[in-house]
């Protein structure tokens, strides 16, 4: 997943991630556990997450 500069670090994505693959501290970052399922994209309130192909 690519997380752009819109990210404010609210952590909403992390709470909906099924793989506990998002760390949040000022900004969200995906970890190696990310499987690119894209669920977080739907829940981001500021359109900060893009599926990287």
């Amino acid at each position, binding site marked *: 997943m690519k997380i752009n500069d*819109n990210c*404010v*670090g*609210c*952590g*909403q994505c*992390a*709470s*909906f991630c099924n793989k*506990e693959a998002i760390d*949040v*501290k*000022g*900004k969200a970052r995906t970890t190696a556990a990310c499987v690119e399922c894209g669920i977080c994209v*739907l*829940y981001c*309130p*500021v359109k900060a997450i893009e599926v990287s192909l």
Partner: protein
Amino acid sequence: MKAIVIGAGLGGLLSAARLSQAGYQVDVFERLPITGGRFTNLNYKGFQVSSGAFHILPHGPSGPLAQLLNEVQADVKIVRSSQTVVRVPLKQGDPDYGKGFKDISFTDFATLLSYKERLKIALLIVSTRKNRPSGSTLQAWLRTQFKDEWLVKFADSFCGWALSLRSDEVSVEEVFEIIENMYRFGGPGVPMGGCKGVIDSLERVIAVNGGKIYTKTEVSKILVENGRASGVIVGDKTHEANLIISNLGHAATASLCSEVLSGDRYSGYLRMLETLKPSAGIKICLAADEPLVGNSGVLLTPYAKRVNGIDEVTQVDPKLAPPGKHLTMSHQHVAPENVKNLDSEIELGLKDLKEIFPGKKYEVLLIQSYHDDWPVNRAASGTDPGNETPIPELYVVGDGAKGKGGIEVEGVALGVAATMKKILG
């Protein structure tokens, strides 16, 4: 009569509940898959952390939000918290909590002042009821009246906690409005089930009244016909309405009807929008096996470097955490110039928490920050431009259009109540 509500945050759902109760046919369009905006629960590792606002109603079971919930017959229980306390160093004059601390009652803040300054406060309490101070920031006003820095620290911690502003960022008028409301409505309370307890109760009201909520539904345009709001566009479909309520704040609402607003007669409104500044903050959620605060009251921390206040919501509703666990949340204001340094602001907050809870065992569950397009407040408290827009039948509600003196969600409720009064009479 048909009403469309854009955004299913607290302001949107309160409006939808009231309008559907009054007989409007109401559709709520929400872009995200969940409702509640920055006032709902997020399940994180079994804890019900909040999506934005704390699980708190600043004026509890008798405040403006509780009154509006009661008016629309929303079924949610709000429990009054115990007295707000203020943590101060054990020895007066110490700069921090390093050498020990004690907690004093919020209403006893003046006991830390000299006899002369306490007398002055007593006089001001009487005189300011008739002649409200105005024309300066709270901090500037305090400095003209008192020499004691404690009062500025205390004011910073209260304003940081309640408004996510420093005392030099908020007008003294707004603060006196807030103090008036504290006398009128009383102190904080916690809704059972947290923020989502309130949201769920509103959704039930809307459903009973025949209203519909559509999630994953993004409005791309607000339509204006003959100078009046007439509907919205979702995807390639037009939805007509007699009334549009936007829960997106003034700026984002204006961008949905930018073509109409580009005319000369709206330039004043557009210029005003540019002056609106969102307020920023950081919330640190702690998980612990033992209570960290130990009671249901807000703990203000004026001698911390960044953290303004802390609340332990599981003291009221243990179901907000897994069995036997506690959920404790701290809030810290982030000054505009520090939004770009969030990492170091977070580190300062974490360091504060270690000093506030020495020797206690806890886990940092989640750190959440709010600024810019997903802020603490879309318009800093006291600068709200009201609920009307230059386009008739288009209103703005939510934290970008609150009522005067309304702390956080109480302000959202005051703004919705004022809007409904304009519409329904």
